[in-house]
């Protein structure tokens, strides 16, 4: 069986700025998430995969065929760009029909497919409205509709969930999963871990233009768990809280912020820490104003992985 997506020694830079460097990978059917902080090179990688940019070194292939300037392959490829850009004066339906006509479909077939795509992303009722009047969630969904309307085998989605409300996210996740169930190959980029978790367990970590890890999402979770966590609690009784927690063996460090009435704990077992905190809150009149995790994000994991 041919590999769906293949990157060989892929490198791309913009003047002196490095986009991606020596990326080698193969992606098979299913959902694969490209995970990395902003500016990591996710979009550059996706643009090369979809023939928008040419790699300075190396080559990207889809189903064994090179992508750059190979229009034939675009019949099997759907691309949802990151930018919130549209032909604003067109209606959602016209937007889809116009793009579908570029596949050589007859007008009737293009209209049929456009309607089907609108149904899939639950926009049928507003298909006749100008795109400029769409909400953020609708715009994101119509963008996905144009990527799936021709029923591609490979779907590349650049940050499809960014800036969406939970309901819209759920809708888009549903559409992407339906595609996966149909045996397609989907690559999704994101910089938000919970978003990716809801989509897939197969992830590729990209950082500063390089792939630093690839595998199951639980591997990342484990990394997070073995990597010490910081938990900042703001409370008028922050010293009392610190005193109550000090005897716990999973606590590594404590630091006070008297000016903010807060204490920062460092622990390597977040679950046990929060269980103990719950017990304390139930058994004593402690008042807590705020709980935050200053490093509970991908950046912390990336920093950890790259040894910062």
């Amino acid at each position: 069986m041919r590999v769906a997506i293949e990157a060989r020694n892929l490198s791309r830079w913009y003047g002196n700025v490095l986009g991606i460097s020596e990326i080698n990978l193969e992606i098979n059917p299913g959902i694969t998430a490209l995970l990395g902080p902003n500016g990591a090179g996710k979009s550059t990688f996706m643009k090369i995969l979809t023939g928008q940019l040419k790699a300075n070194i190396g080559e990207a292939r889809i189903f064994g065929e090179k992508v750059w300037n190979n229009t034939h392959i675009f019949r099997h490829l759907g691309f949802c760009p990151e930018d919130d850009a549209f032909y604003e004066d067109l209606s959602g339906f016209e937007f889809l029909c116009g793009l579908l006509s570029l596949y050589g479909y007859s007008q009737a077939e293009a209209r049929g497919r456009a309607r089907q795509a609108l149904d899939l992303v639950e926009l049928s009722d507003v298909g006749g409205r100008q795109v400029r009047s769409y909400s953020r969630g609708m715009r994101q969904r119509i963008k996905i509709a144009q990527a799936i309307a021709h029923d591609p085998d490979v779907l590349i989605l650049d940050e499809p969930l960014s800036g969406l409300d939970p309901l819209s996210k759920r809708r888009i996740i549903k559409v992407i999963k339906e595609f996966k169930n149909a045996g397609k190959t989907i690559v999704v980029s994101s910089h938000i871990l919970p978003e990716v978790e809801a989509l897939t367990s197969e992830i590729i970590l990209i950082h500063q233009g390089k792939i630093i890890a690839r595998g199951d999402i639980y591997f990342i979770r484990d990394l997070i768990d073995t990597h010490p966590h910081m938990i900042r609690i703001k409370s008028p009784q922050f010293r009392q809280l610190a005193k109550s927690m000090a005897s716990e063996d999973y606590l590594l460090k404590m630091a006070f912020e008297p000016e903010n009435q807060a204490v920062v704990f460092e622990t390597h077992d977040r679950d046990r820490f929060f269980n103990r905190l719950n017990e304390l809150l139930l058994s004593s009149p402690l008042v807590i104003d705020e709980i935050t995790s200053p490093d509970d994000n991908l950046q912390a994991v990336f920093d950890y992985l790259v040894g910062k």
Partner: protein
Amino acid sequence: MTSIREKGYHHWEGQFLEKQRTFWPITRTGLKLAFGRKHFKLFYTFSFIPAVVYAVIIYISERLEDFKSISQGAEKIFQINPNFFKSYLTLDILYFAILLLMSIGGAGLLADDFRHKAVQLYFARPLTKADYLLGKAGVVIFFVGTLTLIPAVLLYLLKLLFAGSFGFFLAYPGLILSIIACSLFLILFFTAFVLLASSLSNNRNYVISIIFGLYFFSEILRGIISVIFRSPLSALFSITANLKQVAAGFFQVKPPYDYPWYLSFLLVSLFCLLSYLVIKHKVRGVEVIK
């Protein structure tokens, strides 16, 4: 358990800050962006060539004896009088340079804000529509002012300096006022024209096309109407002809077209007023989707 916070009314005991010159940061940013555009500095520098040429003429006019070989037969050029200053302020090449500069640095003043939906960001600050428009107008005022008012006044001072006496001042006591009034009128017109064009679209290319399209179209229209009706009033259709006619009025010299200069003055003033109303209507904090 923490108690539910009581919802109450709090008196605000702060003080309002005195109104600041809120338009200035907008102007400053506009100028910075304009100078940051490709080739802008080069075009801006070239735009001063006419002023330099006029300065050289003033110099030669005071040294006619030394430059006999150049000035022979062209004495009229070296006569420094109100017509000389009027001719500087009505140079076609100067107007073209202003429009070119404003196409590069001014076309996007409002259009870019519309395109990026940035107007609402301005109005989320303590800023009135007048502050916003004044800030944007400041950019055009700066460039048109530095190409009209400042060089014209400097040329006047240069003439006084080179002459070394107050003879010129006494010969034309109202000239400096004419220079200032005419320059201010030009500044007003170009500001209204550029901002109007910029407010008509969110596409910078379209704005540039409007600026030059209307400029050339008005001249062509004048040409056609003049051929058909053979009336000097056809000049009322042309941007440059109107500006030249008004300038003649300010400098109290013979107007280039045979009709009272105040007709052009009224027409241009009406255009500025209408432009202001259109711009004011177009600049809204909320996008209305029809």
